[in-house]
């Protein structure tokens, strides 16, 4: 197929149509569609139990779909699991580094599973350890690494086969801010190298920083999709006032035209122009508030509802 400009449109790296996954009677993925363009960072955003991890497992051919079609690199899954996995790197949600080996050995053993020749492997191990800043830990036992180091090593491991697609399941959950920023920088490097990234997260900040496009999933369905900026523009007003404190904010804002929402002990005021509302809130010294631009979290809360999920 050739478009009008004369160049062939890139086929999506992953495309799912009507994808379904059932465990006995329970349907955890309920007919989702998405296509991931080559070279982009694609996010699946959703609360716990939304079906994100199950979707990733299906992409890897580790979980046969119960319905719909799924293609990776244009190859139907799960029939082509072996061929497809040879070109994918996975960073799973739970660490499964091999505890019997050191840092470098973990990469070597993993490279063996891909059938990579030893000489090539040694080169890659050195450059990957440098990439995740673990070169000085090459001979350290896995069991003595911190959580952040383990995650960085897992990322290095996922790159051992020089994959075209890197799949990351909540890559920075439970990590401290320094490590998160370091990992985000590395993921942007990977994208700059032309790799396609597919990641799940429930951190809005992470999705906003990294993802070109995303789908918001909840209870096995896609609620919304699109480019990150568009999603925010489409669903929420551009300015937000987040009000805490025991002042009489609700009364002060009642005359303003914006939208009010309450989550826990916080009042959210969404508006196109916050100037008037800000002036009113400032008149009460007991009101504590923050004026910020709308972000993905606002979209997410609006789409998935306000109640807490387990």
């Amino acid at each position: 197929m050739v478009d009008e400009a004369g160049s062939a449109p890139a086929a999506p790296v992953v495309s799912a149509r009507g994808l379904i996954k059932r465990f006995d009677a329970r349907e955890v993925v309920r007919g989702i569609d998405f296509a991931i363009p080559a070279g982009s960072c694609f996010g699946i955003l959703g609360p716990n139990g939304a079906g994100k991890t199950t979707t990733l497992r299906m992409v890897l051919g580790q979980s046969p779909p119960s319905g719909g079609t799924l293609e990776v690199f244009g190859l139907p899954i799960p029939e082509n699991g072996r061929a497809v996995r040879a070109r994918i790197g996975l960073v799973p949600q739970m660490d499964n580094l091999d505890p019997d080996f050191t840092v470098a050995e973990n990469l070597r053993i993993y490279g063996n599973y891909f059938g990579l020749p030893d000489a090539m492997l040694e080169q890659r191990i050195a450059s990957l350890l440098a990439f995740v800043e673990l070169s000085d830990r090459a001979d350290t036992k896995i069991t003595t690494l911190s959580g952040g180091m383990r995650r960085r090593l897992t990322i290095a491991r996922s790159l051992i086969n020089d994959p075209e697609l890197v799949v990351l399941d909540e890559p920075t959950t439970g990590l401290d801010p320094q490590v998160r920023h370091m990992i985000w920088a590395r993921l942007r490097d990977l994208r700059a190298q032309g790799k396609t990234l597919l990641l799940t997260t429930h951190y809005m900040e992470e999705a906003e920083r990294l993802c070109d496009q995303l789908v918001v999933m909840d209870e096995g369905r896609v609620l919304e999709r699109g480019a990150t900026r568009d999603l925010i523009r489409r669903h929420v007003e551009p300015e937000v006032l987040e009000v805490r404190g025991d002042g009489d904010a609700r009364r002060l804002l009642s005359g303003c035209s914006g939208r009010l929402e309450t989550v826990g002990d916080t009042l959210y005021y969404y508006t196109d122009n916050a100037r008037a509302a800000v002036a009113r809130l400032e008149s009460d010294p007991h009101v504590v508030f923050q004026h910020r631009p709308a972000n993905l979290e606002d979209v997410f809360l609006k789409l998935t509802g306000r109640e807490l999920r387990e």
Partner: protein
Amino acid sequence: MSAAYLVLPRLRHGAFAVWRRNVLVWRKLMVPSLLFNLGEPFLYLLGLGYGLGLFIGDTMQMPYLTFLASGILASSAMNTASFEAMYSVYTRMVPQRTYDAILATPLEVQDVLAGEALWAATKCVISGAGILLVAALLGGVHGWPALWVIPVLFVVGVAFACLGLIMSSMANGYDYFSYYMTLVVTPMFVLSGVFYPVSALPGVLQSIVQVLPLYHAVELVRPLVAGRVPDQIGLHLSVLVLYAVPAFLIAVRFARRRLVV
């Protein structure tokens, strides 16, 4: 059972990568592992072979030490393979999640289990070679043809490993393996002609013992250690293979149910 499971297992590169992983782990723990594998058989040979042998004299036209050494060779292959395929495999499959990581590479469940069976059999060969050496030093081995025991132990190891793999694929904890050890491994150890000729057993028991894999392992190993050619080699090998292949297919089926969901 769908047709895919009836296709004979095919060894792929991935199985050898799993095998290689285990070799590398073993190399780190080689000394305690060898001591564990050799210590017990050595004590049996020394204590029972010499001590009991003094009272028993020749058994089936061979010194009791030779008789016992050959029984120990076969039964230690059973123990080594069963232990590896159950406790070690379960550890990698469930608490350690090693297979989850491997299954994100081009390998599939059958490659992982094939690699584990190959490794368990390799371990049988390593410890078997040690026992053979000990037996030879004690004067219980009759001639170089006894080295044929090594490939035989590999086959014996594969058969018991495949049986053990069914257990580890189904198990919900380590306790599960005690049942198999108590109800399957120990009775075979006691009844299959390791310590005394099977002909000493009551007739009914004799016919039962003859369908057990350890009996066929002993029937192959014993003449080789005594410097003779075994009778009915084809029959004994076939029985071992007939245990190994279906057991492997069943193990793959259960392991898939656990790992690929």
